[in-house]
Every structure is written in structure tokens, then in C-alpha cells.
């Protein structure tokens, strides 16, 4: 559904490209997770998709059509994006905010039709946000705000959803609930492209993992293919071991403590 082909992006006044020839696919019905250390180019991937940065080389394709040949609106109708950070400047209500997900579907003077209202109430139901639709978005807790942002993206409709670090401010329960919901979306046939720091969670939920490092794809494949101790240790520059998640047997990363001088290992 979404394909990056040999994408190169260089930010002005930076010597090294943020993306140095990245190719990857996010297919319908799967969670595809992009992982990697800080500054590896994960967020630039999302920004390349929404046209916020120019491609120096390569192509970003949506069902084999280059995003350059799609209008921004047409792209937004098909792919919903939840960016890493979003600080609303003005206090819309939760319902008004979620309704903005229908923006790309509406003409300038067109008011929401039945289909739009259905998409909005459906999104509210799936994210379990119905109890606070009248509250101001500026007064939500971190967890509520993330769910409301996801609801806005779901209201947008389309066959793909792209999320950049969606669980940053969530506690364990909300984090798991978020991943379970993404998993259901993928099962319903959506392409879910997820950028995340949470290697262990991603390894449990994603079908396909892509490991980025300094703008290059360092490894790609199933979680077991990508979660290789030696490779990860090299990339993260930190001693670690890969074990198995006791619940489901997915590969799990355990970073080790560094022994410093004067400290005794007991």
C-alpha cells in the first residue's frame, strides 16, 4: 500500500542525509514497524510521506502511484497520519477535534454528510473516547489526548494509518490498549505503519520490522530476523541481550548495565 523506494532526504545545512536511500513497504493487513535509535531518520520518513520535506531522490508510492502525482487532499483521504508531537493552540472540544479528521473529505462550503458523521462516531467508539467528547482538548491527560488523536486519524478513514511514537505518554495499560487497537485495524485490512522506540512491544505486535540506522535500512523482516543481539548492540552502542518474551515467545531486548570502576558485581 505505502512504498518507499530508494528515498534520499537531506535537511539544509546538514552534511549527512537524514534518509540515505531507504526502501520499505507497508502492506495492507499488517503492522509494519520502523525502529531505530534517535536520529536514525524515523520521523523524517513520516515527514517525507506528508510532503513536509522534499525528496532529493527516490519515490514514495501509494498503491503504485507516486505521492507527487496525488493531490495532498487525495493522499490525506487514503492515509491518516498521527505525528509525533502536536500541541493544539486553541481549545476545541474533543468532538470538534475528531471531526477535523473529515477535513480532506469536505469541500470549502460543504457541511458533513451522513457518511462523515458515521465515520466520526465510529472512530469515537473504537477509541473509547465517547465519555469526554465535550471536553476541551487542552484539558486532557496525556493518555486521553493520544486516544483522541488516534480517533481523529480513524475518522479520516482511508486504508492506511501512519503513527509516529503513538505510545510516548502512555502507561502500560494504555500502551497495550493502543497496540491491541492497531492490531485490530490491521486485521480489518488497514496498512498500519508505526514508528516506534518500543522494540519489545513492536516485536510482539508487528508482522514486519524495519531497523533504521543513520538513514540506512540496517535490517528488515520478521521481528526474529531484525532482533539480532549483535546488530542491535552495534547500532545502539550499548551492551544488551536478546531473550524471549515469557508470555508469547517474541524476541525481547534487555539492555545491560555497564559495570563501572569501583562497582562490584555481586
Amino acid at each position: 500500500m505505502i512504498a518507499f523506494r530508494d528515498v534520499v532526504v537531506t535537511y539544509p545545512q546538514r552534511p549527512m542525509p537524514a534518509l540515505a536511500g531507504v526502501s520499505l513497504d507497508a502492506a495492507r493487513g499488517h503492522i509494519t514497524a520502523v525502529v531505530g535509535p534517535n536520529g536514525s531518520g524515523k520521523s523524517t520518513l513520516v515527514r517525507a510521506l506528508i510532503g513536509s520535506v522534499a525528496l532529493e531522490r527516490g519515490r514514495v508510492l501509494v498503491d503504485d502511484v507516486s505521492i507527487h502525482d496525488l493531490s495532498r487532499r487525495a493522499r490525506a483521504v487514503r492515509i491518516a497520519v498521527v505525528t509525533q508531537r502536536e500541541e493544539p493552540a486553541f481549545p476545541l472540544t474533543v468532538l470538534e477535534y475528531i471531526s477535523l479528521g473529515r477535513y480532506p473529505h469536505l469541500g470549502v462550503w460543504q457541511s458533513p454528510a451522513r457518511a462523515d458523521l458515521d465515520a466520526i462516531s465510529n472512530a469515537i467508539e473504537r477509541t473509547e473516547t465517547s465519555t469526554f467528547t465535550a471536553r476541551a482538548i487542552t484539558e486532557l491527560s496525556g493518555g486521553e489526548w493520544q486516544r483522541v488523536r488516534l480517533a481523529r486519524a480513524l475518522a479520516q478513514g482511508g486504508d492506511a494509518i501512519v503513527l509516529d511514537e503513538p505510545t510516548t505518554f502512555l502507561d502500560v495499560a494504555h500502551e497495550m490498549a493502543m497496540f491491541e487497537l492497531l492490531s485490530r485495524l490491521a486485521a480489518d485490512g488497514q496498512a498500519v505503519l508505526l514508528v516506534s522506540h518500543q522494540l519489545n512491544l513492536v516485536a510482539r505486535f508487528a508482522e514486519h520490522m524495519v531497523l533504521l540506522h543513520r538513514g540506512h535500512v540496517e535490517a528488515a523482516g520478521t521481528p526474529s530476523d531484525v532482533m539480532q543481539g549483535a546488530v542491535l548492540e552495534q547500532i545502539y552502542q550499548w551492551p544488551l541481550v536478546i531473550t524471549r518474551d515469557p508470555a508469547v515467545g517474541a524476541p525481547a531486548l534487555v539492555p545491560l548495565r555497564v559495570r563501572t570502576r569501583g562497582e562490584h558485581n555481586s
Partner: protein
Amino acid sequence: MHVSRWGALVVLLAAAIVAGVAFGTLHLSPGDVMHGLIGDGAPMSVAVVRTLRLPRVLLAALVGAGLAAAGAALQGSTRNKLAEPYLLGVSGGAAVGAVLATAARAPASLIPIAAFAGALTSVALALLVARASGGRGDPRVVLMAGVVVGAFANAVIMVVLANADAGAIRGALWWMMGSVTDASWMQVRVLFVFVVVGVGVLVALGRAIDVLALGDDTAAGLGIHVGRVSLGVYCAGALLAAGTVSAAGLVGFVGLLVPHLVRLAGARTHRTIIAAAALGGASLVVFADLFARTARAPSELPLGAVTALIGVPFFLILLRRLT
């Protein structure tokens, strides 16, 4: 926003217009006002209503509507609660355009166009300054750039005026303090076109401004061309600043204050905020002008000074509620 509040805004504006036409050096009764408007009253009151008071009141209303709508839209698109044509330097640029055109003895009909060119130049300068400092997406940097451009515009005006004769300086000074004293029907017609086009564009962009207010990346994800939409808001804001500045000089605080009042009254989406701010701003400036010409009659206070006198304390109260 609730229907009753729209009703209240319309009633307020109607009351402001009737009061603005009725009161002055010569007080007229509501009956005189009505007969004056229809044209079958005493010749004296017909003349006062039709040639003196009504164009003045309507010009004040249009100035208020344009400034408040521009402020509401700019606050949304820049994500900055302090944005308005003055602080962003747009009005300053319009003033430079108008002063240069006047100094070059250009015909009166060209002054709004020169003001528009000046306003657009200041927008371009502010955006370039913001971009050069690397803060293109940062609303605070855009505002700071605007303040700097505004200060530069002031300096240009002072340089131009330094060589002017005393009479011209006095006229220019009065105009820079804001005034609708010399309102003519011609000015009303010109500003009406500016305000209808400017506010129309902003209301059309209202939904896009709601999305833009969520931040550049989220807006891009929702299919917005961030650069184009914000440029559209700046251009419409420049048009409104140019129209109001060439009609009435520098009238401050309306663009800052009114959108906040409208938000406090429950308007949240920008289409509502912009339209309601236009109505509220019109009422505010009509009342402010009424005060300016009646408080110390027969001499007049500068309109810009009155709006600042009302605006500053109000804004300080608001600041507590906003932060």
C-alpha cells in the same frame, strides 16, 4: 456558538450604529435618525445623518470588522494569541505605503493600493526574516520578525515626515493616531469592497485555519498545503490592514482584543470566530468613535488612542484568564 449569542452580536451592532448616528454635537432622537435615513425629515437632520454621521459610523464599523477578522484569522494561522495586523507589522507596512503615496502626491484612489503593496511587502519581509533565522514554523519567531518589521516601518514613516511641512506632519500624525473624522461615502464604498473580499476569503479559509492551528505536520497530514494556506491568510490580512489603514489610519488593539472576547463567548472554530469577530469589532469601533467625538466635544480624541485606552485594561484582564 449559540444562536442567541449571534443574535446578541447583531443587536449590539444595530444599537451601536443607531447610537453612533444619533449622538454627537447635535443630538438626534431615534425618530430623527429614522426620518434622516429615509430622507423625509427636517433638511438639517437629513444632512447630518446622511452626509456626516452615517458614512462616519459605517466607516468605523468596517474598520472594526476588518481589523477584528484579520486578527482572528492571523491568531489561528500563526498559532499565536498575540498575532494581529499591528504586532505582525502588516499595518505598519500599509502605513508606509499610504504615507509614501501621499508624499508623492498620488491621487487619493491610489492610496489604498499603495497601502496594500506596503502591507504585502511587510508580510514578505517578516516571513523572510523568520525563515532566515531558521524559525519558519515557529509562531514566536514570526511574531518577533513582525515586531521588527513594524519598527522598521515606523522609522521609514518618520524619515519621510522629517522633510514634510508642518501642516502635512500634523495631518499625518492625526492619521497615525487613527481617525474616521473625514469619512466620505467614497471611502465607505472602497473599504466595503476590501472588507467583503478580505473577510470572505478568511471565512472560506476558516476550516483550513482550524487544521493549521493544530500545527504544521498535523495539518500536512490532513492534506493542507501549509505554506499556501498561511500565505492566503497573510494576503487577506494584508488586504484588510491596507483597507482600514488607508481609511482610518492606525487603530490598535481591535484585532487583538475582539477575537479573544469572541473566544471567551464560546466561539471555537475559526469560521465562527472570524465572522463573530467581524460583528463584534464593528460594534467596538463604532462605540469607540462615538466616545472619541463626544467625550470632550467639540474637540475630538484620536480614535486609536480611545481603542488603546479601552483595549489595554481589557487585555490585562484577559491575560489572566488566558494564561
